[in-house]
């Protein structure tokens, strides 16, 4: 049986968890002290040995990314933290930065030292004002305590950190679009190669890492690579947040070793809401092909989820029960991709636009069975044909939902409308009378 491993979230129940005092009281910044006594390359090696893979969705080995920086490039090096959490279903970095911003700041300091950078940026999506306040507060506290700035902890290492607010664009979670945005341009993806390691921010060598990846680094430095690999699987080492949302009794953040299954997590979260059963779910956000109850025992690691036809992504487990119309769900996701497509590549811009039209008429009962072939044809022309993965992601819910729920699309056609009562799916849909009682509590 897999058990939870609270590490980044271990002290979130302390009311002062976001303060420097609270973080230090639980051992915070000891890893930075240890790191600054090491050779930078030894830290890169430790992160390589840990097998830490990017927690932003793609799963690229973090230490290897650091190792790609060309040693002979004379330009300054930059660390850029991708805190533009916007993938539908993904909700881990925001609570992390709200409750534990110093873990990220400490990770930034260690990672910057390891890659020999003296300038780091944290690019946070703009739509989370209080998270931005918290991060800036943590950075200011760290400066005042000599943990950032010049001559950090008397070691001669200098580092400046800027918390930069985005302005509303999902595409800026794509690392090269993020860099363009940080340079003051429209956030549109760049053709790769060159990769950011060679020509990133201001065409200088740059490492772009997700919040959770960087925040995990202090624990690896403090406890060692072997400690990290004692969790997870051989190729998907360590721990991560599994974020359960939707039709589940106790939605929330569950920090567990990679390889845990949805069956185990649902058991921990009190199961699907009472009286209902699992219909479909996303393993890692809306850009990962949906799963059904056939996949309850699929280990949630990069390899196993891939072998089962989806992607681990950001471990954003959106749970939908039998009251949910899959056509409506997919239609809404595609409306999102159409809205967020940056417009640079024709297949993504046009493909998503047309999929919205087709899915709308299907949902309203005005479609035909041929529309399903049309959708699959559009997906075929979209997948792998754009600069970045936004368009690829859009095909995931479409093709997977037609694979598992083709009949439900046809039901819409034959019935001339949606066969579902949407009110039954709501948070208050099961309540007999009052609709104002709270769930879970917020305080």
């Amino acid at each position, binding site marked *: 049986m897999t058990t939870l491993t609270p590490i980044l979230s271990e002290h979130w129940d302390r009311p002062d968890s976001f303060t420097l005092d609270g973080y230090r009281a639980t051992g915070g910044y000891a890893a930075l002290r240890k790191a600054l006594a090491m050779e930078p390359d030894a830290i890169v090696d430790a992160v390589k040995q840990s097998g830490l893979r990017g927690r932003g969705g793609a799963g690229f080995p973090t230490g290897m990314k650091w190792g790609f920086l060309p040693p002979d490039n004379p330009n300054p090096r930059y660390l850029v933290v991708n805190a533009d959490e916007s993938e539908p279903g993904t909700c881990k970095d925001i609570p992390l930065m709200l409750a534990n911003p110093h873990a990220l700041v400490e990770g930034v300091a260690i990672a910057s030292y390891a890659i020999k950078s003296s*300038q780091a940026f944290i690019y946070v999506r703009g739509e989370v004002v209080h998270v931005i306040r918290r991060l800036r507060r943590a950075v200011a506290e760290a400066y005042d305590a000599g943990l950032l700035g010049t001559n950090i902890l008397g070691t001669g290492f200098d580092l400046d950190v800027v918390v930069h607010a985005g302005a509303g664009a999902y595409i800026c979670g794509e690392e090269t679009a993020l860099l363009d945005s940080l340079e003051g341009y429209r956030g549109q993806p760049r053709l790769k190669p060159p990769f950011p390691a060679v020509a990133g921010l201001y065409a200088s060598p740059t490492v772009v890492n997700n919040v959770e990846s960087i925040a995990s680094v202090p624990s690896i430095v403090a406890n060692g690579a072997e400690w990290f690999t004692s969790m997870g699987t051989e190729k998907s080492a360590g721990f991560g947040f599994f974020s*359960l949302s*939707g039709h589940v009794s106790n*939605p929330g953040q569950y920090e567990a070793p990679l390889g845990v299954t949805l069956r185990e997590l649902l058991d921990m979260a009190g199961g699907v809401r009472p009286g209902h059963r699992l219909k479909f779910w996303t393993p890692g956000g809306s850009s990962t092909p949906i799963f059904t109850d056939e996949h309850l025992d699929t280990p949630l690691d990069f390899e196993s989820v891939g072998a089962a036809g989806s992607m681990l992504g950001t471990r954003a487990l959106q749970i939908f029960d039998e009251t949910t119309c899959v056509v409506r769900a997919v239609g809404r996701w595609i409306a999102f991709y159409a809205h967020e497509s940056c417009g640079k590549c024709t297949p993504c811009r046009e493909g998503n636009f047309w999929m919205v039209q087709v899915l709308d008429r299907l949902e309203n009962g005005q479609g035909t069975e041929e529309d399903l072939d049309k959708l699959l044809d559009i997906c075929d022309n979209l997948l792998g044909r754009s600069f970045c993965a936004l368009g690829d992601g859009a095909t995931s819910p479409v093709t997977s939902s037609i694979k598992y729920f083709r009949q439900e699309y046809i039901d819409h056609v034959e019935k001339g409308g949606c066969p579902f009562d949407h009110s039954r799916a709501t948070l208050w849909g099961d309540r007999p009378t009052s*609709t104002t009682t709270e769930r879970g509590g917020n305080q």
Partner: protein
Amino acid sequence: MTEHSTPDAGGTAPDRFPDEVVARLEQDAKELISRYPKERSALLPLLHLVQAEEGHVSRAGMRFCADQLGITLAEVNAVATFYTMYRRRPGGDYQVGVCTNTLCAVMGGDEIFATLKEHLGVGNAETTEDGRVTLEHVECNAACDFAPVVMVNWEFFDNQTPESATQLVDDLRLGKDVAPTRGPSSLCTWKQASRVLAGFDDGRGGEGVQAAAPSLAGLKLARQRGWTAPDPANLPAPNQGEEEAK
């Protein structure tokens, strides 16, 4: 209901900020630009700054940004129109955004949005006649475990219902104190929030909870069951499977 036009397109809006506004904002702009190795990186912060001044990004605001960075108005316009957080026309003191991405929509976001439209008598991206509330639907705001979610001036109002959201907008219109579920102890206005986004601290980062119940769900269960991460001083022997196989 106020039907939005594009006031600047008619040529009636001033092309530039008054001198005293320019003089004041120039100090802020210098501070923002100094934070970056290359000055153009300050464009998004500068656009938040001019939005903090006027409540939206006007032609005069874009002109100010262009002048500060030595780029053209067209270059600024191209960026300002790309990002959805920059309002291109005046709006209310409180922007009420209802998440209608799939998860929140299914959990009741659609019902909340429909209720508010009817209650306020406005459509998407429209403002109440008293100028207090601009209603819009928003995309996923990374709080899915708190669905359905409503954002006001980009602060979290978690686990909303049609009734609670109606009460919320009524309170906003009446000027009552309203506090986000996870955020500062009271809401600031749209302009004040924009100034924080530009990069100027309002000193309120210490307010509010560190985490709410769903963020602590896993931790609480682990504490109940005595589950912890491995002890680095006492790790299980590596490759146990191999050893056993021998």
